[in-house]
Each structure stands twice: as structure tokens, then as C-alpha cells.
């Protein structure tokens, strides 16, 4: 058990390290942020002065050593654009992203599990088809387009909800719905097939033969055993939402989360900030993955005994 946890933990650390090195290399490979920081009419002396004060005139490996030494202590340098510690800027945006992803994830789970379970009870039923359509839609329709259409309908035409930005609960509705659709469809489909697998097992037949009520068979026996697959897919989807989908949705709804910050950092050529944001997302995703891995042992005693 301990070995398992330590193994997963080490893996998470390797992933975060890989992400850091990759992003650092990419951002230092090309480009020059200096000119962005100066007024349009800045003189060439000013440019050179700032460049050397930021250490950008050093060879690449020297810069990397300096970066690594600081990064270990949690110092990722100052954001070139906001002139504050980059990690602070990134951390400030994390709550907004967690709020959005959390809401979307809740919507997805709350809808996907009943939908998948119900679909599995009667394969081929109307409900089953709805699940399939949702799943397909999640894959086929670009979420940002759906978001745009909802924006036109609910905000511009009907005026019920704000078009974008952050504020009270009503600001959360459209982005969370948009973000939830794709994972919801896929999760419903996965829940369905996991349930179908379980319902075909021997123990279900036995339970039914023993006269256990159908409701109990489905909800207690089958669902419990399907839980491990469901947790896996839910964790996977949560990770993907954090690591990518949220960027487009945040950008579309100008939700000031970390996904939008990444795009702003790229636009502003603010590479300390870009690094800090990507690393922070990497850490968050790794933590989600770690949590999913650990929850296996909860749902599946066989892993617990592996030690």
C-alpha cells in the first residue's frame, strides 16, 4: 500500500518536473519579452538595460540554473507584465478556475451517473438513445460553439444571463454548462458500459435468483462494483477539464481563471507567468490523478493488498 502511494507520488513529481522543464525550454527558445515592457518609443539603450537587468543576456544554461535554483524554493520570478511574483498571480486565478471546473464537474457527474445507470437498465430504450446522443454531441459539437449559441440565446436574445465575466451565481451558469457537456456525455456512456458489464456478471444473476429486488441489484451490487471504472473516468475527465477544456471556455466567457491567464501570458509574452500557470495547472492535475489512484484502493481491496 505504502509502496503504491509513494510510487504514484513520485510519478506525479516527475510529471510536474517534466512540465516545468518543457515550458521553460519552450519559452526561452525564442522570443524577447523586453520590448513588451517598454513604451513604444523606448530607446535601444533602454532595451539593453532592461534585458541585462532581467538576466536575459546570459547563456541559456546559466538562465536555467538560476531558474531551477529559485523554482525549488517556489520562486518563479516576477510576472513581466504585472510586475508581481508570477506564482502569486497564477494562484490568484486558481480559485475562479476551481469554481468553474468544480461546478461543471458537479453538473456532469450529477447528470451522467443517473443517465448512464438508467440507460444500462434497458439497453435500446429511449433513455439509452438520449445518452448516446449526448455522448456523441459531446464529442462532435465544439463546446465553444455551443457556448456561443447559448450566449446568443440566453444572454443576447432573452437577456436572462450575463454574456460573460465573473460575478454572482448567474455568471457561472453558462460557462459551467458549456464546460460540462463534453465530459457529461462521455461519462454517461462510460457509466452505461461499466454497468452493462457488471449486470452481465454471475453475481448479479445469483442475486436476482435469490430474489433481491431489482433496484437493490442495480444500485447496491452492480453500481458498487462499477464504481471503480466510474471513478477512473470521472477523474480522467476532471483532469482533462483542468488541463485544457477550461482554457477555451474561460476565454469564451472571459472567466478570469488560470486558463485565460495562460492565453494572456502568451499574448503578453510573459514567460515567468506562463511557466507558473502551466506548472500550477500541472500540479493541480497531478493531484487529481493522485487522488483518483488512491481512491482505487478504497474501491478495490485487491490493490490495497498488493503491498
Amino acid at each position, binding site marked *: 500500500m505504502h509502496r503504491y502511494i509513494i510510487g504514484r507520488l513520485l*510519478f*506525479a513529481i*516527475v*510529471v510536474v518536473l*517534466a*512540465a516545468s522543464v*518543457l*515550458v521553460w525550454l*519552450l*519559452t526561452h*527558445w*525564442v*522570443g524577447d519579452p523586453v520590448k513588451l515592457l517598454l513604451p513604444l518609443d523606448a530607446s535601444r539603450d533602454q532595451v539593453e538595460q532592461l534585458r541585462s537587468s532581467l538576466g536575459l543576456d546570459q547563456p541559456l544554461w546559466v538562465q536555467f540554473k538560476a531558474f531551477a535554483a529559485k523554482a525549488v524554493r517556489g520562486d518563479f520570478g516576477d510576472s513581466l507584465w504585472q510586475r508581481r511574483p508570477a506564482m502569486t498571480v497564477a494562484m490568484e486565478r486558481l480559485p475562479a478556475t476551481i469554481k468553474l471546473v468544480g461546478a461543471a464537474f458537479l453538473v456532469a457527474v450529477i447528470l451522467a451517473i443517473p443517465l448512464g445507470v438508467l440507460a444500462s437498465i434497458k*439497453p*435500446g430504450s429511449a433513455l*439509452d*438513445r438520449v445518452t*448516446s446522443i449526448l455522448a*456523441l454531441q459531446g*464529442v*462532435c*459539437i*465544439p463546446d*465553444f*460553439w*455551443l457556448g*456561443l*449559441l447559448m*450566449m*446568443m440565446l440566453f444572454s*443576447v436574445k432573452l437577456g436572462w444571463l450575463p*454574456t460573460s465575466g465573473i460575478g454572482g451565481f448567474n455568471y457561472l451558469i453558462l460557462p459551467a454548462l458549456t464546460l460540462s457537456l463534453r465530459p457529461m456525455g*462521455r461519462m454517461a456512456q*462510460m457509466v452505461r458500459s461499466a454497468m452493462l458489464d457488471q449486470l452481465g456478471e454471475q453475481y448479479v444473476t445469483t442475486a436476482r435468483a435469490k430474489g433481491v429486488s431489482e433496484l437493490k441489484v442495480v444500485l447496491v451490487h452492480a453500481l458498487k462494483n462499477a464504481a471503480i471504472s466510474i471513478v*477512473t*473516468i470521472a477523474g*480522467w475527465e476532471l483532469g482533462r477539464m*483542468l*488541463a*485544457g*477544456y477550461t*482554457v*477555451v471556455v474561460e*476565454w*469564451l466567457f472571459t472567466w478570469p481563471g488560470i486558463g485565460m491567464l*495562460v*492565453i494572456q501570458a*502568451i*499574448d503578453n509574452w510573459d514567460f515567468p507567468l*506562463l511557466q507558473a500557470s*502551466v506548472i500550477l*495547472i*500541472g500540479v493541480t*492535475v*497531478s493531484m487529481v*490523478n493522485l487522488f483518483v489512484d488512491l481512491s482505487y484502493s478504497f474501491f478495490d481491496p485487491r490493490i490495497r493488498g498488493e503491498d
Partner: protein
Amino acid sequence: MAVGTLVRPSRAKSALTGIRNFSADRVTLIFIVILATIFLSAIFATWIVPGDPFKGNLRDRLKPPAWSEKGDSKFMLGTDPQGRDILSRLIMGARVSLTVGFGVVAIAGLVGTIAGLVAGFFGGRVDQVIMRILDVQFALPGMLVALTIAGVLGPNMKNLMIALSVNGWMVFARVIRGMVLSIKNRPFVEAALAVGCSRWRIVFVHIFPHTLASLSTLAVIEVARIILAEASMSFLGLGIQPPGASWGLMLGEGRMYITTAWWLVTFPGLAIAITILSLNMLALRMRSYSDPLQRRAMKF
């Protein structure tokens, strides 16, 4: 994780019968017709566009589609803020989407397949190394890495394709490796080894063909995924740049005008959705025909 379950080992024979049944299915035929239309218009885009997709007249800007009150019959689906014909831009956009989709899948598929074949067949340390790289890369925030690459290299079609390829090879590697593992212990491989065929020859001549059916299904699904990724990145401004035409870019440009010009964001999104839907439907069918097990499991 999810991807591993998508494709199962298939039998070459059933694939053949599959192709025969294929055309019998009318719904599938519809999707094939749609895809063929998109393909042909992408190929012949330069000849069939009704207007100039890259240049418009400002005096024609933001015209609604032809059937609306203020519409102009010259512009079937209306015009964009530059006065360019939306339909023409959609057609040119198809070219971009398909180029990126197939280009990336070709590159990523090639790299991934070779990696998967090598890892699966030779096993040992090679396998270990490839699988570790794969695991780590799967765990990285892929979209962010792609965005960073495109942002750093500068947004254009070539760099977009590089960025997406870097993130696309792992799926192929993982699936192919799994298949090789199950194939390599079959008698015919052992026989080939016994006859003294070189190991490289066995990999590419004996094993590789058995992966083709699943590989092509996976490739179609991946094309769809990449087209969506291209649209997302162009939407974010890190893909195709104006005056180029890309569906994602058109959505991004139209967003500013959602209060005044609904047609700017409606049609490009529709084009993306239909293309991806058709590709996925095709993939589903391909899989169900090449794999009888899957076929039984399909319940729509």
C-alpha cells in the same frame, strides 16, 4: 485510459466482409456523401467558391444571409466584417481543417505507430522507456503544451501542426503496442521467427498489417479530434491568422459581433459539428464492421 478500450484486435477477414456490408447501410452512406462533399469542396475550393474568400468590399460588410430581409442574393450565407462571402470562406476553411487534420494524423500516426510497434515487439528496456515517456506525456496538460508551442513558435499553420503532432502520437503508440503484444505470441509469428525472418521484417511485414483495420479506425477518430483542436486553437487566436480562413478563426472573429450578426458564428460552428459528426459516425461503423464483437455491443 479511455482510448485503450476503443479498439480491439480485429480479424482481417471480417474487415473484408465488413466493406461489403458497408455500402448497404444507408445512414452510413449519408455520412460518406457528406464527407465526400467536404473533401471535394476542399480540394476544388479555388474553383468552386462563389466569391473571393480572402478579399471583400467594405460596402458589403455584415450582410445577413440571402434569405433574410436585408440579405443579398450574391452572398448565400451572408458576409463577414470585411464584406467577404461566408460560404466561400467556409469552403476554404474546409481545406485548412482537412489539411491540418490529415497532416497531423499522418505525422503523429507514423511516429506513434513505429513507437508502438517497437515497444510492443522488442519489449524490455525500449518498451520501458517508451512507456514512461508516454505515461508522463499523457499526464501533462496537453492542450496547454500545444498552446505554448504554438504561442512560442508563432501562430501559423505549420506551427499549429507541429504543436498538435507533439500531442498526438501517444494514442497511436499505446494502441499499437497493445495490439502487438497480443499478436506477437500467435503461431504465425513464432513460425516466421523459426524460419529465420529478421525481427524488423516480422514487425513490419507480418505484424503491422494486422493492426491496419484498427489503425484506420483510430486515425479517423483522431482526424476528427485534431480538426476540433485546430478550431479551438484558431478560436483562441493561436492558430490560423487572418486573412486566412479557418472555421475556428471565423468563430473567434464573429464573437465580437454576436449582438448584431448571428450568422458569423452560426455557420462555421455548424461546419465543424457536421464534419466531426460524420467522421465519428464513419469510425463507429468502421469499427463495428471490422470487429464483430463491437458490432454486437453497438446499441443505438
